[in-house]
């Protein structure tokens, strides 16, 4: 048995590790196992590998790839009679591996993938230099991994362009409702990297939608990346902690933190689970988590908007719409009914539920970079579900899923428009 200090993070989730009885209930729902059909790829197998790691039967290096081969979708936990939270064990094991062996991401990408592609590399550097040099001065200590991430995604993938003007350039820090509309709430808007750099028009829509409905929106300039690719994807808890602290500080004075990205929201709620190493952080992260609301959750549960408030943009009226439920929204945040309630209540569109709406799309950030072929196979099942609905528009609640669904539908030459649920509205 290795000394426990080698596996500090795994030890924190020992209860989950011990809980698994290897019954195999995770097999039918694990998206990775459904494609690969190997024992090492399923949740139960990962638990057994981590146990073998603690028993010294296997090294962290030997199990690294199988650890990375997990979308953290939480479907295993949902189906586990023992309630084993396998993704926590996987994330913790990734973190311990990074602590023991150093960080491999994003450097591995740079060396193996980016460097041999000069044009892409130059483009990435330009982008990276923009972020760090101009908009995010180093002195602020804000960290962005998006540039690497998006470039890596470009591997033959259909991805939207980096926006010419980022959201933080087009939207002021404080956005008040128009004259004559009373202010009911003042909220902070956590824009997330994707909305900020790739889909700024979504952010603009959300701000004006909220303003119109009596919500003042603050877009704090000190906010950064949520940290999901860093601490959950790559297991770099130390950097993750710095990112978490920056976000907690940026939103200190605000009652609600609204997100349009389910991954950002759940990653930030998970600060306390993974990154809280002191009592102070535990307290701050827990308080921060309590104020985070997905946009649909805020509109339905807090603002309680009537159906008439959702005015569908003219080009989408009369269309058939289906909903892809992001893992981070449904299983992680428990936001399942709110977006459906909105979609069902709008008279201007026809809503159709897709088969297996909550099944993982296979994006999972870093996962889709490391295993693009596998990620595509998982997406193909989702694409088939979309096709089965006959809908012309697929809406979702996570820009990460959006990227994956855009890629999946384009690869199959399908006509569906993929967008965030809030883009439906005027």
């Amino acid at each position, binding site marked *: 048995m290795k000394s426990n200090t080698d596996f500090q993070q795994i030890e924190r989730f020992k209860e989950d590790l011990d*809980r698994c*009885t*290897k*019954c*195999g*209930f*995770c*097999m*039918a*729902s694990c998206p990775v196992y459904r494609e690969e*059909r*190997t*024992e*090492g790829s*399923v949740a*139960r*197998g990962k638990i*057994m*590998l981590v146990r*073998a790691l603690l028993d010294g*039967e*296997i090294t962290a290096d*030997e*199990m690294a790839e*199988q650890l990375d081969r997990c979308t953290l979708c939480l479907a295993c936990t949902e*189906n*586990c*009679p*023992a309630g084993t939270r396998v993704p926590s064990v996987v994330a913790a094991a990734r973190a311990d591996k990074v602590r023991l062996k150093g960080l491999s991401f994003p450097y591995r990408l740079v060396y193996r993938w980016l460097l041999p592609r000069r044009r892409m590399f130059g483009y990435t550097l330009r982008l990276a230099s923009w972020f760090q040099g101009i908009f995010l001065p180093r002195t602020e200590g804000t960290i962005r991994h998006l540039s690497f991430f998006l470039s890596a995604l470009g591997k033959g993938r259909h991805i939207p362009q980096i926006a010419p003007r980022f959201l933080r350039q087009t939207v002021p820090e404080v956005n008040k409702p128009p004259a004559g509309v009373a202010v009911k709430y003042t909220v902070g808007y956590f824009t997330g990297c994707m909305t900020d750099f790739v889909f700024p028009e979504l952010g603009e829509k959300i701000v004006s939608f909220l303003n119109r409905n009596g919500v003042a929106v603050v877009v704090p300039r000190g906010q950064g990346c949520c940290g999901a690719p860093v601490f959950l994807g790559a297991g770099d808890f130390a950097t993750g902690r710095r990112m978490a602290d920056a976000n907690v500080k940026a939103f200190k004075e605000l009652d609600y933190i609204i997100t349009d990205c389910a991954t950002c929201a759940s990653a930030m709620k998970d600060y306390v689970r993974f990154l809280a190493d002191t009592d102070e952080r535990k307290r701050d992260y827990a308080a921060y988590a309590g104020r985070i609301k997905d946009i649909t959750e805020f509109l339905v549960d807090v603002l309680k908007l009537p159906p008439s408030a959702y005015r569908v943009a003219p080009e989408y009226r009369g269309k058939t719409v289906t909903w892809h439920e992001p893992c981070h929204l449904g299983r992680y945040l428990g936001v399942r009914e709110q977006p459906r309630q909105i979609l069902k209540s709008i008279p201007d569109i026809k809503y159709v539920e897709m088969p297996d709406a909550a099944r993982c799309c296979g994006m999972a950030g870093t996962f889709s970079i490391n295993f693009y072929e596998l990620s595509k196979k998982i997406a193909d099942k989702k694409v088939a579900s979309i096709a089965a609905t006959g809908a012309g528009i697929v809406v979702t609640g996570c820009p990460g899923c959006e990227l994956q669904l855009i890629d999946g539908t384009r690869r199959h030459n399908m006509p569906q428009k993929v967008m965030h649920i809030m883009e439906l509205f005027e």
Partner: protein
Amino acid sequence: MIDSNIIDRLRRIAGNENVLAAREDLLAYSYDATNTWKHAPDVVVLPVNVAQVSEILRLASENRVPVTPRGGGTNVSGGSVPIKGGIVLCTTRLDRIIEINRANLHAVVEPGVVLQDFNTALARQGLFFPPDPQSFAGCTMGGVVAENSGGPSCLKYGVTRQYVLGLEVVLADGTVVKLGGLTPKNRTGYELAMLFTGSEGTLGVISRIILRLLPAPKASRTIVAAFDDVATAGETVSSIIAGSVLPSKVEFVDNWTFEKFRGLLPDETLDSSQVILLIQVDGLPETVEAETQLVEATCQQNTPWIKVAVDSTEAERYWQARRAHFSDISSRAHTIVNEDVSVPRDKIAEFIRLSQESARRHDVPISFAGHVGDGNFHPVVLTDNRDREHYQRALMCVDEIIETALSLGGVLSGEHGIGLEKQRFLKKALDPAAINIMKKIKDVLDPLHILNPGKIWEEDSKIPLNPFRVNPSG
């Protein structure tokens, strides 16, 4: 360790992507759903067609390499653990549903189809395959047949062998044999397909399965009843059946796992009762309503606490709580010894009473859950294999429980199979002449004994008795 040359040849047969030989991959094939047995193979091969299965077995025969066939590996007998190393032949990539024939009520599947996926596909056409081992979310059809799986629904619908019409099997020397056929009636020669049904991978590798199907029942209801003592619960079940109602499931849980029912049943009921029965009736809506009333009336004679689930959502909550029994009981002790005896229904109360006496005598905790409708019980003894003395007492208690079941006219294993787990009891449970016949059959079909060696009747002094763990060879 096997020759690396064998691994190279396997790669040529099945393709690189279907052969696993890295340490971490081998470790992932070293276990099943028991916590007693562990041994890594030397190589794992996942064939994608029957020709590959045949070539793999021919190669193994020529080189006398052990082959352990497996699917999902969710069995609880040690049966899919490659105790002698060698090759694990995993059928999970042979996962096509080839045909679902609604008119003839049959289906043709490959062995790697997951049972739950199969039933989802059948449900779309209003059909079902009744055997429902509680590993349905991970177990594969090859394993369902090779283990002759049961489950709660077997009270009314019978076990897997009642649904096997035909098989394609690859023998140890690579010969591909077709057995049985498409029709429910078939009296052509010996029932060889039955020989492989329940053979636990020791006689051949099942590569294709023809199954009989049933039209799915149009309706079902779940009735929950709590009882003060085991005997009354047992009598109630007998009365229900005597009243001409054959429920599709009658499941029993004792108060060890009542926690899973908190929030579903009133606290005072859970605090005062000893046993919960979960009863499901199914069929046409009219039948279901009538049967529900009869079951309710029968239960009312013996217990004040009965509840009929209002809808399938509520019913599913109770069944989830039942399914959580194994994980719940597992969390209560470091080691559990889970048995699988089956006794005639009228002996259930006596069996439980005698087993509880054994547990008291050996001073070990015991819990019962099971398919009480058909007498198939899973007594679980809670122990800790790190505490040698306690573990020995637990094993002695288990020995007595099995003796008790056999003396009441029961059998050693109702549905889990023998594998490694129950090997040591086999001589007590089987006529010596029957074991002899099994050995002769094995010699005919697998003369070199390469298929799933060390399992069922095969005794081997190299396999330690009651091991907790055998180190992986890798």
